[in-house]
């Protein structure tokens, strides 16, 4: 029965054999739709996508620019910071060197001063000593002469002889004292 139905139908229509009218209509309908989509739909969508892409890419580009800018600023800051650090270090070194130099100078000055003071003192001492020795010598001479004249009972009037005697005596004393002094 099923076969008969198919056979009966096949007399009119075979489903595998295309009907020319349908092929033509299908083609025309398809081409119409294709025309509409190609002419009106696709360009609009593509334009939208292009715009969207441009916008996104623009945004990305802007972000990249901002990032580059930030990077550059950071580099700049780092550079400045490094510079400042170097500067500070240099200043510190300079200060230290200068300080050392100042200390050195002061020390030298102080040494010179002390040396000078010592020398002056020495000088003064020498002068005083010389003076004292001279005074003493005169004193001693006179006293010794006085003492001697009292002992001897006569005045040693001969000035020249007296002076010679005293000087000779003192020189003898010096010769005895000098090795001990040294």
């Amino acid at each position, binding site marked *: 029965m099923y076969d008969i139905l198919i056979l009966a139908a096949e007399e009119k229509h075979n489903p595998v054999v295309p009907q020319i009218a349908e092929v033509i209509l299908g083609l025309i309908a398809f081409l119409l739709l294709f025309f509409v989509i190609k002419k009106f739909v*696709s360009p609009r969508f593509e334009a939208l996508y292009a715009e969207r892409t441009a916008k996104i890419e623009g945004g990305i580009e802007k972000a990249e620019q901002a990032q580059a800018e930030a990077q550059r600023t950071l580099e700049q800051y780092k550079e400045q910071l490094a510079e400042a650090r170097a500067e500070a270090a240099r200043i510190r070194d300079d200060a230290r060197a200068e300080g050392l130099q100042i200390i050195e100078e002061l020390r030298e000055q102080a040494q010179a001063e002390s040396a000078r003071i010592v020398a002056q003192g020495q000088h003064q001492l020498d002068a005083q000593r010389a003076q004292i020795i001279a005074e003493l010598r005169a004193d001693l001479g006179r006293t010794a002469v006085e003492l001697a004249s009292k002992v001897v009972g006569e005045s040693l009037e001969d000035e020249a002889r007296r002076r010679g005697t005293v000087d000779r005596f003192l020189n003898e004393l010096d010769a005895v004292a000098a090795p001990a002094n040294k």
Partner: protein
Amino acid sequence: MTEMVLASGDKFVAPGVADFFLPPIFGSVTKPMVLLVLSILIIGAFFIAASRNLKLIPGKFQFAAESVYDFGRNNIAREQIGAKDFKPFIPLILTIFCFILVNNLFGLIPLVQFPTMSHIGFPLAVSLLVVYPVYHFVGFKRHGFVGYLKHQTVPPGAPWFVLPLLIPIEFFQKFILNPLTLAIRVFAAMFAGHLLLLVFTLAGEFLLLNGGLTVIVAPVSFAFAIALTFLEALIMCLQAYIFALLSASYIGMALAEEH
């Protein structure tokens, strides 16, 4: 089927090819013809409406339209043809996909319920008269006449002694078989699917109305019809996708520099 028919005592007229060729509505205009025209009106109106006022940030309707457009554009055309050449073919691939899809889905829409593509004339018009000339045309244009013939029929890397065998096979496939199989694939799927739905629906109806005790199995038949409807929905979308995909693939192969 025969047993059921016998059991009911009445004659069950199984659905057949005749159900696909209903009498014309008026003149020589048949139902699939009307549906076909309706389909291009629907698709055209949908896309025109969606693309009238496109915004950078899409609304719901635009998002839906964009999804369809993107599917044809990115998933089918760009994948198969390649990012370099796919742009000019977007409208074609999109049209093919939507055209086949909507006409297939007519098989499920209540009251319409007829997949237009179950008439082989329609898919054949698209495959043989549109896709076939397009991909060979762009192929000849890209590679030159001899170059394209060689490109299509001589697979690179094939040893010379199999070429006498390969060349006729490849030629037969690329120049004769491809457009036919493309059309037959969707036609057969729609034809068989619709027939299956008819069988289960009509059998259910028959069991319900004419049967004695067989009334109790009628719901089973209807349940099958419903289950098959879901399956059909899947197949309809799949066939539309495959048709568009293969069309794009043929174009892509014709344009490909080397395999």
